[in-house]
């Protein structure tokens, strides 16, 4: 069963995502709302990882080497300025979308397995991921015109 492979992928991507939110929080302290919200969301992703634990216990997990596109290296050095903030938020959006669709895949398997517990975990984590994406989109939309038009040099 390849579910274990997907649980491994989900597990890795959630950890990567939480780490990335923390890096952005740290790198953008001058935008207090970004810092604060990224910290709150990172803590909630930790919660998702905990919820995954009993599922992993049941089905096992197979972790493949971290996929290329999930490297967090880019977050070791957050960017600066209006455009830098925009790009960092956009990277978070991409990572968050990856976990979003991974939850969807796992959720489909949960339905096939008639695993009610896993279905509940997926449902609550999907809502949480939707909240991340909604916040990122809100903040990106707010920032984009000033960063792209008004900033000079």
């Amino acid at each position, binding site marked *: 069963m390849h579910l274990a492979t997907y649980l491994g992928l989900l597990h890795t991507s959630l950890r990567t995502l939480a780490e990335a939110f923390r890096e952005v929080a740290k790198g953008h302290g001058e935008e207090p*709302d970004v810092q604060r919200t990224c910290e709150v969301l990172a*803590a909630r992703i930790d919660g998702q990882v905990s919820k995954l634990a009993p599922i992993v216990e049941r089905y096992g997990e197979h972790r493949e080497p971290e996929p290329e596109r999930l490297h967090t290296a880019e977050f070791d050095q957050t960017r600066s300025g209006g455009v830098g903030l925009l790009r960092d938020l956009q990277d978070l959006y991409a990572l968050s979308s990856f976990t979003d669709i991974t939850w969807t895949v796992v959720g489909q398997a949960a339905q096939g397995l008639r695993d009610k517990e896993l279905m509940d975990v997926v449902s609550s984590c999907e809502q949480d991921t939707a*909240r991340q994406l909604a916040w990122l989109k809100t903040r990106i939309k707010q920032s984009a015109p*000033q960063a792209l038009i*008004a*900033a000079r040099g």
Partner: protein
Amino acid sequence: MRTETDKFHPEFHSEDAGYCHLVDRIADVWGPRTPHERETNWPVRVDQQLADGLGESDVDRWVQSACVLCSNGCGCDIAVKDGRIVGVRGRADDLVNRGRLGPKGLYGSWQAHRKDRLIRPLIRRSGELVETDWDTAMREVVHRSQQLLAEAGPLSHGFYTSGQLFLEEYYTLGVIGKAGIGTPHMDGNTRLCTATAAASLKETFGADGQPACHADIDLCDALFLFGHNMAATQTVMWARVLDRIAGPDRPQVVVVDPRSTPTAEAADVHLAPLPGTNLALMNGLVRALIERGWIDEEYISAHTLGFEKLKTAVEPYTPEHVASICRISPTDLLRAAEIFGTSQRVLSTVLQGFYQSHQATAASCQVNNLHLLRGLIGKPGSGVLQMNGQPTAQNTRETGADGDLPGFRNWDNPEHVEQLARLWNVDPLTIPHWAPPTHAMQIWRYAEQGTIKFLWISATNPAVSLPELSRIREILRKEDLFVVAQDAFSTETTELADVVLPAALWGEKQGTFTNLSRVVHLSEQAVEPPGEARSDLDIFLDYAYRMGFQNRDGDPLITWKDAEGAFDAWRECSRGRPCDYSDITYERLRAGSGIPWGGERLYVDGVFPTTADYCEDYGHDLLTGAQTTPTDYKAERPDGRAFLKAAEYTPASEQPSDEYPFLGTTGRTVYHFHTRTKTKRAPELQKAAPEPWVEMSAADAARLALADGDVVRVESERGGVEVPVRIGRCRDGVVFLPFHYGFQAANELTPTEWDPVSKQPLFKISAVRIRKV
């Protein structure tokens, strides 16, 4: 001598109305009691203050107005003699105050008019502000404005306004910003005082607007004050409460405040949660109501959305759990819940203790939820007043001089933007609506980053009132930021401006404003402004004329020339919206004393403005501030039902540490208003509270070996002040500083952080340390 009051109410005789000329309202802040019982009218008590040596017979005329020294908006008449303001008197027939005035109104509203005024424009030359003439000052403003529009476009412009101007001035400024320049960067210092009131009303009910009214104080069986020290901030409103408490069948009073204020001392239950934990407390109250079945299931199912989600969200907040987070007694929490759950009529008020704190909007929405759960809204004696701090704050929200569109229109609804474009005859694309109008804290950040290069500040003093003042001063001093400051006095802010425009004060200009219970008053011009000072409206109109703002047909964008013209334009703009002023005219306002828009109470029928094409906002996730998309909003089919929203409690980011062991909170004294520009010029008020201080508990003082009056240094990570200690009132571990003072200013300590939904800064939580100097 005939008075305005005599004219319209010939049956009124001053000698019958309990005049109290000689009462010292510094010592007796709320004045003598006029007790009454439930469902009887609040008795009249007329307060009056005239300049020393003057009697009523010396007064040439009385001019109709209302007080602008807090959000209560007490109706008053201005006494004029020889072209000067010489005093004030409460209007006996006004539905807000029934003749009363508080100490700030009696002493502070008129005595500053002839003191230290700015009477000529100033312009910075070789680093110094020097006097100039209006033409030179305005030419410089317009030159910089046009140059930046050509070079960098509308996003280079920001406007930071006030809670002190009149409706007509805000609306004019709103049109200039949105349809003239086309910048989204306009907000007021109302962001610091009432943003959460507006946000929580929008989240729950779909649009701004206070559901309750002042008369509900006369009718209620229980009164809940959430983070609201009413005895200090709205003294006349508190006098109304005291008169119920002193009468038969008194209401039960519950106060949530970490300090033992006079408001808290009058309470039957005083809950003193640790600063930053309000949401946990509120989740606990809501849970207790649901658990005990003190809810109206019929009302919930007919008029609300989201009950099951709310129930799930508050489930973890048992009394014991809440007590451990907030450090309060679980018994007190349950007692408060019982009073809320079992009283026939409940009125709640909410203010800065909630608004300027952590998770502000989520906590304030839970107050709305308590009322919805019991169906106690829109009924006599029952409802919510999400309070305003400043006298005209409501009007910035209504007219779009803050982070809203005029007429409670929804920036995310293209039809609403179309309506404005049609009204103003401009291209809808001119009106920025790709995101909500920029909130104040973000405007200052853009100025800090150098993308806003033109900042026009009107009638406010951000160099004292914003958090983290060292940062604000640095921004105002930036070489590449052109700062226009418009004020009646020289302030900490005008001193850092490039152009200073001298403005007329209340009583020197005409206009209307709306108080915390939607009551509109007309304030007539009583005297001429001093020197060359001009009304804020005339200044904005002059700017618009010089800038040549045009509509699509090439005609002037702004067609009005005076206050009444602006008001009539606003009546059109508000037509059909929740804040509909179309049937309110200057003539009607003159004929009475205060007219509420929307009727006495809102939502009498349990129908809320949540229909998708009518609502002011599609709402947010209360935890993060993520916007609800139009599609998601419509999918919920709110159709007139209110939203029961909730969020989990999260600890505030600023926590006491070994290095900064105390939680510092800021607030108000009864004797001053805002940054004291008027009240420090009233001798009685200034003498009553001449300098700042820090309050702490007796136990904390003993631990630090401090005696009353010892001067201490209070420091946060951001800055420090040196002030004397006052012992008492605070709970252990919490200290309090008044924010009014420009020297040793409390906001040296406060952090740059804000609520995710309302964007209101967190003035109430700074980790600080204290040492004797």
